[in-house]
């Protein structure tokens, strides 16, 4: 457990020192959402109606931005080999790196989301659900993304390949994430959608580190 935190802390520190961590993803998130009123016009009803979808799609793309670097830099400078040689399962290493990715990307996105919801005139009834759904959703996104990030190691133009690999896998999270917020706005119960999002997270929690570790071993051979 202490080694898990040790790796997570190092990755968070690296993200902040390099400046590519949370700040860039959040800036992208904000800018992408802000583009929509310019594109579809400032009509309040229209913006309120698409707000949940716009925020979710932008969050999805933003969380993918820094994924390419998740294992790439460690792979290139030899750190990944050494991490694989520490006396702990590689799956735990992956989980620690995913945790750090979520802390530097997912968490700032969640913090910025209510502000953007306000900008898009979302009814305040939806705010709490938006935050809960984003929390569950971004955790799954980071986990799923780790599999893609591990698979693209060693390939050229990995970033594009990464998005082709994992964007389809993001679709279920997107559907139920937007569904939860829309249900809250319409006054329906949000329990089923949130339960499905929770189920995605619980399924991804063991599966994705396992799959990523397998891909990493393959890349290092």
């Amino acid at each position, binding site marked *: 457990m202490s080694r898990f935190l040790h790796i997570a802390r190092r990755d968070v520190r690296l993200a902040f020192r390099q400046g590519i961590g949370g700040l860039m993803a959040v800036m992208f998130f904000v800018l992408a959402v802000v583009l929509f009123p310019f594109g579809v016009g400032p009509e309040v009803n229209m913006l309120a109606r698409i707000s949940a979808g716009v925020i979710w799609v932008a969050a999805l793309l933003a969380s993918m931005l820094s994924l390419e670097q998740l294992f790439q830099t460690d792979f290139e400078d*030899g750190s990944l080999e050494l991490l694989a*040689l520490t006396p702990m399962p590689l799956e735990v290493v992956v989980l620690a790196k995913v945790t750090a990715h979520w802390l530097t990307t997912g968490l700032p996105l969640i913090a910025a989301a209510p502000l953007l919801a306000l900008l898009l005139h979302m009814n305040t009834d939806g705010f709490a659900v938006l935050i809960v759904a984003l929390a569950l959703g971004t955790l799954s996104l980071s986990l799923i993304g780790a599999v893609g990030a591990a698979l693209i190691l060693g390939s050229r133009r990995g970033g594009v390949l990464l998005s082709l690999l994992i964007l389809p896998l993001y679709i279920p999270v997107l559907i139920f994430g937007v569904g939860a917020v829309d249900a809250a706005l319409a006054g329906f119960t949000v329990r089923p959608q949130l339960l499905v999002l929770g189920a995605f997270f619980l399924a991804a929690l063991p599966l994705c580190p396992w799959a990523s570790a397998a891909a990493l071993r393959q890349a290092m051979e």
Partner: protein
Amino acid sequence: MTQFTGRNLVCVRGERRVFAGLDFAVDAGGALVLAGANGSGKSSLLRLMAGLLPPASGTLSWDGAATAADPEAHRARLHYVGHLDAVKPVLTVAENLRFWAGLRPGRRAGNPGDSVGPALETFGIAHLADVPGRFLSAGQKRRLTLARIVTAPAPLWLLDEPTTALDEAATASLEAAIAGHRAGGGMVVVATHTKMAVDGARVLDLSGFAVRSQGAGALDS
């Protein structure tokens, strides 16, 4: 007495057999120097020994027990130095070293920082402790990598061209570190092209195990 052995090892890289039928044995306090031309499989053998690469056939054993049966225990007893230095440009020298030291078992009780100072001292880079990795020269990075293996005790050192970019003084420090390690019952396997003073080392010439014109993918057919 502790012994690290490999029996009948076969290594396959990308459809091509690099070496076959290779045996080796290292006793406690012993050293094995890997010799052979470029491409004869010195690095591959070291990666095999570390467990980064599974042998196509054959077994590696530690004290008679196959290392593949308990890879985590095997990783806990080895230090591997590859071609890459795994130095993070944004972390200081001390931070880089402290991270790797913190992941090792058997570190001295309490703070992993305890062993960092003396390790930097060993390779003459203590004055660089607060300098970020990006300002280091190639030789200084190499020294930092080597300092990593003396921060935490491990009985088996696997060194792949450790003297690359090192000056004479640092090479002497490394030779002294290896001698000290072996005096304490440690083992060293080193692949090198430069002259390194390793007393009483067994030399394993990999050219003798090279496989010629085997299979469709052979490069020299």
